[in-house]
């Protein structure tokens, strides 16, 4: 009796070569990486990815999960190990006290001299964050910078997305490609490039002086202005793409219907296009706002000493002050600040889907 082509037993056999090949690929890559000039990190990353695919698969098989669950199990395992576990590690550190030790924080409990258990864990670090104006101001300042950047990204991104969505097909693809093009260069390099534009003897000051518009060079570097420029520039594609995806679906007949019923182009935009693009606006704004809150590189490179952002505080606490417990508390609070808007976004999107 031969097994049917897609019987479970047969499928298990068909997948087994992958299980053998995965570790072999990693070993082979490790052996040849010198000649291929592959960085060790990359090989380790590939190895980790394959290990997870492999491990998730084997684990799923051992537990006897159906194959389609295993497909989900692999990314779930990835999220569990690289997101949830570090989150709990951070949470645990944030409850400890700082210590000059290795690692530089206290355990959560100790055995007392009398043999009882003494609990050291406390919310002291969180209370400290609230009591020190520096942290509160840094959070507020981060929210402000992220919020203003999001509004500017929206104001700039909406017309661009609208124009692309309304363009005829061959041009539309080219324009979309141009929006994504900056991603082909390193983010860090692009932010560095802005220094060349914004600094005292930079492109902008040189051109303006040459044109006779200004006598003194403008001070742009190491100001909040430079941070706004950096954030809006960097995250603009994240605003444009979801907005484009939304606007391109807009039925042209609706615009004609509005016009037919006596609406001017402006009224049509305000009463039809804009309300229908709200999901795109929310998605784009979240994609800009959330990473902007925790932004570290842009304020560090373009901002001045006054630019207060929580990403920088986090860095300073971890690496300058070496106060891991406070730094962990800062990170947890930031995470909560970011998660709340995501949850709101999710609920809005769900409502939208129910409507459709």
């Amino acid at each position: 009796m031969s097994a049917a082509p897609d019987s479970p037993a047969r499928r298990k056999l068909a997948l087994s070569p992958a299980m053998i090949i995965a570790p072999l690929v990693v070993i082979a890559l490790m052996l040849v990486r010198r000649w291929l000039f592959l960085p060790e990190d990359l090989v380790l990353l590939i190895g980790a990815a394959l290990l997870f695919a492999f491990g998730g698969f084997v684990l799923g098989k051992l537990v006897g999960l159906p194959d389609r669950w295993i497909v989900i199990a692999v990314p779930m395992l990835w999220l569990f190990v690289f997101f949830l576990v570090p989150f709990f590690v951070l949470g645990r550190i944030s409850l400890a006290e700082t210590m000059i030790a290795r690692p530089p924080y206290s355990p959560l409990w100790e055995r007392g001299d009398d043999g009882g258990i003494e609990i050291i864990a406390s919310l002291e670090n969180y209370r400290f964050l609230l009591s020190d104006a520096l942290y509160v101001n840094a959070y507020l300042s981060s929210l402000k910078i992220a919020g203003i950047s999001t509004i500017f990204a929206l104001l700039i991104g909406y017309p661009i997305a609208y124009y692309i969505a309304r363009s005829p097909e061959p041009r539309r693809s080219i324009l979309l490609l141009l929006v994504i093009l900056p991603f082909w260069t390193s983010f860090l390099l692009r932010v560095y490039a802005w220094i060349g534009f914004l600094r005292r003897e930079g492109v902008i000051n040189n051109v303006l002086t040459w044109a006779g518009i200004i006598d003194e060079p403008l001070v742009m570097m190491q100001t909040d202005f430079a941070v706004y420029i950096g954030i809006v520039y960097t995250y603009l594609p994240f605003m444009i793409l979801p907005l484009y995806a939304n606007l391109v679906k807009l039925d042209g007949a609706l615009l004609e219907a509005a016009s037919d019923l006596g609406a001017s182009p402006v009224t049509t935009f305000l009463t039809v296009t804009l309300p229908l693009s709200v999901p795109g606006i929310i998605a784009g704004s979240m994609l800009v706002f959330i990473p902007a809150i925790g932004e570290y590189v842009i304020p560090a490179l373009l901002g001045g000493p006054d630019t207060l952002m929580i990403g920088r505080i986090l860095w300073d606490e971890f690496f300058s002050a070496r106060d891991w417990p406070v730094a962990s508390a800062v990170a947890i609070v930031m995470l909560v600040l970011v998660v709340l808007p995501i949850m709101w976004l999710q609920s809005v999107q769900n409502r939208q889907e129910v409507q459709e």
Partner: protein
Amino acid sequence: MTSNPALAVNTRPWTDPNAQPFISIRNITKRFGDFTAVNDVSLDIYRSELFCLLGGSGCGKSTLLRMLSGFETPTSGKILIDGQDMAGVPADRRPTNMMFQSYALFPHMSVEKNVAYGLLREGKSKAEAAERAAEMLKLVKLDSFARRKPHQLSGGQRQRVALARALAKQPKVLLLDEPLGALDKKLREETQFELINIQETLGVTFIVVTHDQDEAMTLATRIGVMTDGVIAQIGEPREIYETPKSRFVADFIGSVNLFEGRVGPAAPDLMRVETEDLGSVSVPSAPGLTQGQTVWLAMRPERVWLTREPKPGAVNSVPGVVMDMGYVGHMSSYMVRLANGRQVRVTQANESRRDNPISWDESVHVSFEPGDFRVLTQ
């Protein structure tokens, strides 16, 4: 006029040469690049008409409608609505409203807000607009659905919301693009009469674009049959069906048997046409035909007699064999093969429960009344 003084309004203004058209389309041409969508069309439509533009896809009917609504600008020609030249008048300022094929209801607005949309745009107060919207929804029997969103309605209900929205502003002309196209057959038939009732109640001029000849025949006061950007024939449904002007119109409206032939010698009443398929047939003489000219004889399938024995006294009769038969209930349709192999479509009404209907492979006689032939020259 003098024969019927009680009739104050002429219901067929197109028969009166002095009547003023309400909409006048003059030598309208629309080109998209090299493609001519509408080619030098002239058309007069009268007040309170329900005019149907009928044609296959790509015949230019929708483009013509879009030029009336102001969504397309004519390449050349002129459109007058109620005496006013529409050149340069944008869509939002025209006295027309359109019912879209997809209905184009605003998905984020409730039914009543959809209907009130146009009213608010002309500066009516919210209360006024709401009142009028409620009135319109009552007219289309949707007053209990005012708070619903379009996605909570059935296709037929959406169609009626679209109608109410387009009528709310009391347009001089209502343009309907395939108004019943998205409905299923049963609903379509009901809605046809509802549409006629609403049109008659309000007296608004309707211009309907459709590809469905049954729909056009049922709805229209007059039909304009379009093909390749030109109007092939304009006329009342009966006129289009009974006296088509060309083979295209004859074939497009209903089904037809076409026989090619040459005009024979003239006679006072009837003339003879020599055809390959039917031999020599007698048809009513038509003016303007010369002997030897090629003509086409159009014959509707339901005007053909199908009998087992030769029909006594028949002027035109040919023998044949039933090749195929389809029983549809109220009628049966037959394909009859003539002696030379030509197949003729015949339908016979099933008026009684005949015991012995004509069936497959029977030898039959196909007879034609001379008056039922339509002689076509193009």
